[in-house]
């Protein structure tokens, strides 16, 4: 049966205010069944309060071969990190 059923990627939000996080994937015939399956497979230990599902084929991923062109140019641009400011002592959690 798995061979015929499409793969879905599952995202779970663990609590209010947090974002949905990718937790894994499973097979289902449509989004509704994917949600029910995700409820059974990924929320048995109170892991979440909200589920998103999306068919894996609808995700477009970057190509590993593009790594150099995509990510290497950022390596020598440390000034893009906001680390060159003097922070007043009153500012916390930066």
């Amino acid at each position: 049966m798995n061979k015929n059923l499409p793969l879905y990627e599952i995202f779970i939000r663990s609590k209010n205010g947090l974002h949905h996080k990718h937790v894994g994937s499973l097979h289902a015939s449509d989004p509704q069944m994917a949600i029910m399956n995700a409820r059974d497979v990924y929320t048995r230990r109170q892991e979440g309060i909200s589920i998103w599902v999306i068919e894996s084929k609808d995700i477009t991923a970057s190509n590993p071969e593009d790594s150099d062109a995509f990510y290497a140019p950022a390596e020598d641009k440390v000034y893009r990190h906001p680390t060159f400011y003097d922070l007043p002592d009153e500012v916390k959690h930066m």
Partner: protein
Amino acid sequence: MKNNDLFKYTLQLADDVMILGHRLSEWTGHGPVLEQDIALSNIALDLIGEARNLYQYAAKQEGNGKTEDDYPYKRDVLQWTNALIVEQKNGDFAQTIVRQFLFDCYHYYHLEALSKSTDEQMAFIGAKSVKEARYHLQYSAEWMVRLGDGTEESHARMQQAIEDKMHYFEELFIPTAAESRLVESGVAVDLAPIRVKAYAKLNEVIKESTLKLPEDIYTQQGGRNGVHTEHFGYILAELQYMQKSYPNMQW
């Protein structure tokens, strides 16, 4: 002092969910796909959890040092009062789903009403389990439609399952004498309105599933009096193996 009617009623409710939970647990590791293996195991755990709450309550009523384990592990066939539907074999996935759906149609509405019982403990157990049963009903109804209105083969298997299992549906709505007496004091659930709701749900889902209910249904009954089908002995043989081989063993 022990109220015999309440004690019997408690055990009857417990036996239903204990045996169905045990049946579903037989799927663990054998599910058609991983997702459904886990789903059925989850439902099994919900039902056995409900059974534990009820057996604990029965033990409290009986006293004499009884514990929740005495009822599932130390009673013989004639002392079990579950309805016959829950002891029917798992069969293929269609048979399991139809058995589950029929029971859920009864179970969900029954728990909803039980949560308003005048007996505090019964009301507590009803309120706790009804949330789980709501999901069970959603789950089994979803599969009824998917498989009924699925392929030619899934439809044929579901139709066969309906014809095999409908004989056991009506028994769920026949009250025992003890149960009827408890309805008057508001402790037990009056099954007549539950039956109406259960059939409404059943008819709605059957229609959506493109399945048909058999026309002449002969109702099998006897479970509530300890008269079980031939499958029951096999269930107990497995369930009680340890206690029978090593009486009073603990681990």
